[in-house]
């Protein structure tokens, strides 16, 4: 029982409090890193999609204008 209590006391000791704080800090850094990763990938994918579709629609509209010119002068 004492051992168990000792263990409990140990678990609440300063070293464990420090390691818990360190773990929390690592977790928080990992969470921030993951969140930054998600933001960066979203920004990259969104930018590529927007540029890609703008190029696509501009070329399609140009092609239609060319055809209309050929048809009606």
């Amino acid at each position, binding site marked *: 029982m004492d051992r168990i209590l000792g263990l409990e006391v140990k678990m609440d000791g300063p070293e464990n409090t420090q390691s818990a704080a360190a773990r929390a800090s690592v977790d928080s850094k990992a969470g921030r*890193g993951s*969140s*930054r*990763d*998600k*933001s*960066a*990938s*979203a*920004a*990259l*994918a*969104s*930018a*590529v*999609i*927007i540029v890609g*579709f*703008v190029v*696509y*629609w501009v070329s399609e509209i140009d092609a239609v204008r060319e055809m209309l010119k050929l048809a009606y002068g």
Partner: protein
Amino acid sequence: MPTALPFPRTVSTALLLALGVYFALSEIRIEWYASLRPFFEWMETTAFGRLGKSYGGAFALVQAMHLLSMAVLGGTVLVSDARLMGIVLKNVPINQVLEPCHRLFNCSLSLVVLSGVFMACGVAIKVYYLEVFWYKMLALAMGVLFAYFVRRPLLKPSAEAVPQRLRTLVGVASLMTWFTVAATGRWIGFSG
């Protein structure tokens, strides 16, 4: 001990995009396109293909379902992206708008894909030769990948924590993708 790759999601997104561009510009695309012809011929011989070709009423019914589900899908995209950009429902928390929209998006997307496969079976050879069909498939694939692997993971924990500029960028990209899916779909209807 191997060190973890920094920004794994961003790196894999960049690799996937680079792979897509390489595929679009290389000879592989042409070879792949040619190899798909037997598959499209087979699609017309399936029960769906025969039903779609022989019974105009069945095709029209499924097309109506396709258009209605597309309208629901467009509605969910419009509402959630407009909220993301801060245009509508400003006094409602973003995730409170996104969650029901996402559930409805899942249902309507399933219906759109199922009815779309049926319709494609009926006119498989026609759509195979239509350039705009392939643009639609590309936009659809991009829209699905973007919705489930970029937009959802970014916004699910807390959309309020994401900077407004990024939310706007994501909203515009999502709107453009689904607008292209809908517009190219109509284009297929007017072609041939």
